[in-house]
């Protein structure tokens, strides 16, 4: 997750999407939040929080949500028919 966030910050910096004077702020913010989550749900919540404050993370959040949704679909399918494998 931190790799994705960092690369996204770097891409935003390079493309000018993120002003350079916010680099230290956003990096510090991300570092402060990285160790807090303990579960996958915590990570999703943290990502939503970051995306709400920094729109550059919206794409990561959307991708994560889709992946989470796909995992939930698989879990739901197994839960409905666990012996169909």
């Amino acid at each position: 997750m931190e790799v994705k966030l960092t690369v996204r910050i770097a891409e935003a910096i390079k493309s000018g999407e993120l002003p350079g004077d916010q680099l230290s702020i956003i990096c510090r913010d991300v570092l402060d939040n990285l160790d807090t989550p303990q579960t996958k749900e915590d990570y999703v919540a943290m990502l939503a929080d970051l995306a709400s404050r920094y729109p550059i993370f919206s794409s990561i959040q959307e991708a994560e949500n889709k992946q989470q949704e796909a995992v939930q679909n698989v879990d739901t399918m197994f839960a409905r028919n666990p012996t169909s494998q």
Partner: protein
Amino acid sequence: MPTEQFMAQKAALGKEFTGKGMPESIRWANESIETARKKPENIRAALKAGSEIGNQSILRTEELKTQVETIGKEAIDPETGKKVTTRVETENLKKANDGRELVEIFAEYGQLNPNIPKDQKKMEKLEERMVSVLEARPDGTQLFFPDPKKGVPMTDAKKCVFARKMLKNGGRELHMLVNEEAQALINDPNKPSTASESVIGALERYKDAEFNRDNAQIDLDTAKSEHQQILDDEQSFLDAITPGALGEQLKSLSDSQPGRLADILTSNKALGLLNQHLEQLNIQQEQLVRVKTTNNDMLKGVRQQLNGINRQIWGIRQQIADQTNQLNQMNAEEKKLATLQERKKNLPQEKIQREKAIREAQKGKVVADGEFTAASEDLRIANRLREKTETYFADALYHLPDHIINKYLDGKMDEVAVQIEEAIPFLNEKLREKLILGLDEKHYYEGRRLWKYPMHINTKKEKMIGSAVRQDWRYVVDGKVTTSPGVVETLETRVKNLIGGEAEWKALTEDQQKAVKAVYAVEVTNRYMKMKQERFFRTKVLGQQLITEHEFRELKKHPWNADVMEASARANQQFREAMEQQLPGVDLTTTEGKGRMWDIINKDNVLYALMMAVSVTPALLQEEKPQQS
């Protein structure tokens, strides 16, 4: 001219672009992307570095922006559009490159562990690189690494040894040297650079030059692109206005409102940005497709794993079932073995018991043979008695009270009992008990001796073993008994002895004495008939299978109990039915009826036996000839 306007716009865009360029953050971005690609585990360090890029970096960025603008103007040849590089800049750039490479070598060298063979090889390569850098600049070698003893350039071997020493010391000497040189440069900026420029100064200049070069290159490319775009636009514009009225209108519009055409072109640029954004969206879509494909692959893998796990579970269940069956079989075998061992253990005892049973069976066979012989004897005796019956019959009837005979003939055994009960009121309970117990005591011991032997033994010793009951019967029949030679005991004496003695007898009233005699007569008669009844019953009735062996055994074991009465009553009923069939319409209670019954009985063994079972006439059962009255 439109071209001038476009150029002015370009300059504004270029400034805007340059203003966005923040060297520190851009450099951080490039390094971070590289770190993410090569060493993702160090990405937190990259984030930390990003967080440390603070306001000073921003200020420096502003400063550099000014320098870029200045240098960019000076470095770009307006004629050729190429960067102008002076000799000094080239030299500084080369030094800076060398210095940067040395610093990188130090940095990489410091992270290696000399105790690891793999790292040792890397360290050797780094040493070779350092030597090659030093050799490439012999004049700089002295600058960087002067021989501390001679102050002259070192040989290659010394360079190598020195390089190793420097590397192992973590570059401390180098930094000290560099700091000194940098301080000297600060103190005297006009000092000739060829000999006194420090590595840091070279690096700083290199960084600036590199940054300037990159920005100049960006500006140059942008200018070129926009210049070409302007030329194309102009040409298109001119081409468009030449053929027709629309061109004329556009030309007029361009002349009258020059900013309008620029707006149109700006819109085209915005369109290009939109296209770029669209391309990014397409890239994201491709990424999503890849994610979906990856998820599908993951799902397929998960399914395969689940299939494998299910197969393993099935196999484990099968193994458990097989092992359970084996365990059950083993338990059954073990139980069977234990049973066999127990059987084996008990075999001697079983053998003893079996042999004992065989012996008892052999004994039983002997007894059975004896009983068979006795039965044959009894039958023979019975036949002989039957021959005597006609002779004895009249005498017997003479000795038996008529009312008793009638009761038995009618099967009214209950009435006999009632008769006894009717006499009881004349007796007190204690007196009656004495009488009955006295009879019981004597008849029990004598009777037990009588009943416990097989019938043939009884028959052979009949005079001895039946004496007790028969003696009492004699009191009833004869009124007296010769108990010993010369001693005659009367019925009254016998009754007196039973109830206690002369004093007890005289204490009774006359009615009570009569009652005692009556009860005694009935009781003794009853017992005597039962005794004889059993004997003939066994011989005749059982011989004709009119009752079962079991009933007979019960009669034998309990001659005085209710079963005897019941069996007797049943035989009496059969006797009566037989008589009624033989003598239909005849009153069997009359003297004539009795006479006709005896006629039939004397001709039919079965009826005779039945009569014996009923014990109708005890006198008939006497083997000895009754006394003539």
